[in-house]
């Protein structure tokens, strides 16, 4: 269990959040099916610092971006998710729900 400092609510237990996925850019509508699938399925899955999206389900109900170390689970920075990127979230969901 880890503590995530929500940019809107302050430090909260990770149980309040849903993990969404690695932060990556959604390709344009003219992308080929193979590239789409690469975007959907391919993960960098690093052992170290990673930038990822979380959803504060039991808090402010907003998507946030966090920098987390996947070996120590330390969270060093969080920021609000900019609105215009929000369409990313749905495509990356999955695997995070328990």
């Amino acid at each position, binding site marked *: 269990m880890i503590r995530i400092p929500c940019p809107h609510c302050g430090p909260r237990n*990770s149980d309040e959040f849903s993990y969404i996925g690695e932060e990556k850019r959604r390709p344009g509508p003219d992308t080929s099916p193979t590239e789409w699938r690469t975007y959907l399925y391919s*993960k960098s*899955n690093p*052992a170290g610092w990673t930038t990822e999206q979380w959803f504060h389900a039991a808090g402010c109900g907003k998507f946030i971006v966090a920098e987390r170390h*996947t*070996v120590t689970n330390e969270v060093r920075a969080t920021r609000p998710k900019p609105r215009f990127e929000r369409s990313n979230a749905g495509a990356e969901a999955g695997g995070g729900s*328990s």
Partner: protein
Amino acid sequence: MGVARAGSDLRPAARRFIHLRGAASDGQRKTTTYSAFSLLRHGLTHEKWQRAWREHEVASAYDAVIVGAGVHGLATAYYLAANHNMRRVAVVDKGYVGGGGSGRNTAILRSNYLTPEGVRFYDRSMTLYSTLAADLNFNVMFAKRGHLTLAHNDGSLRTMRWRAEVNKLQGVESEVIAPEEVKRLVPFMDISSHTRYPILGALYHPPGGIIRHDAVNWGYARAADALGVHIHQGTEVLSIGVVDGKVTGVTTNRGEISSPIVVNCTAGWASLVSSLAGVSLPIITHPLQAAVTEPVRMFLGAVVVSGSLHVYVSQTDRGELVFGASTDPYPSYSMRGSLAFTEELASHVLELMPSIAKMRVLRQWAGLCDLTPDFSPIMGTTPVEGFLVDVGWGTYGFKAGPAAGEAMAELVATGKTPELISSFGLSRFGDGLLVGERGAAAVGH
């Protein structure tokens, strides 16, 4: 309790283990056969047992290098030597034999999956497991106890009927049974209708059971060693050489090895090892925690699994109850236990079996699960020639060890992907041909 086998503690422990297990090199000796007679002789004479496998110097070249000395890596090496007479094979591992997922799983065997490809594949593994003790001359303690997957709602009952029919078509024994029959198999189960998650029925899979996972690892290591395979513990792969899209070998902390074939048989580190060869995988790594209780007299015959309650329980031959749960809710390479896990697990188990409320948990631990988008593994070739993968084993790797090893060995030896694993290639993600096993493998998710 608390942290069990955390990552940072692993190395000194691994060194001690290696020192104890195989420090002496006794050259080209013959592996003695275990039998009732040899046991009696050793009991009477107190002579030292021969080491189960040897230590070797790392050679500069092998015909194949297998990364990861768990059940998959060791089985691949064993079948390469036994079925295809390829004996210049090295198995390298940065830790010790069976120290990763192969020693951290809950040792449940079953083949009642959802897709025909999955059922056929896991059934082959069950067949190999059935005779493994005799094949390896090593008691792997396979106990066919019967396997029950409980349904707590109409949706899961429907999936179970579906699974039962797919299983029967593939010749695998599997049937949906009523709560009363569940009670007959497991008398301690609460099948009353007033519980939070009442039991509506179960998928009963009689061939399912449990096995001693360490014995499987050690048995494969000993048998592979006897056939001339080199097992290098404490040998970490630092880089993988690729020239013109072809594998040339690996660099380890114990020197360079040239080899035309490198097989990635790691779990938990699959993405990291593959990235050394420049191959990207659709894998995310989640920890999964498990726990055992103090040993008590045998009372739980079958393996009991509940998808809705995210728990699976079995009783070992020693009498301990082994519990597994869902994967942790976010990806991580940390293998720390958490209080949240223990609390949730206890409440779910007591929901099913209130009578075990006073049993104490002895220890808990975590292992790493490489999850793929379709909950099926990835086996076969990659865009890099000579670099093969046997990865993405999520929560189902241990039960697949023998079949995966046999198929990967055939692929290495013949260069052709066996039909049994042809649906599980890495290219299926780009081609959009996923093998969806979520309905049968997702208890742990």
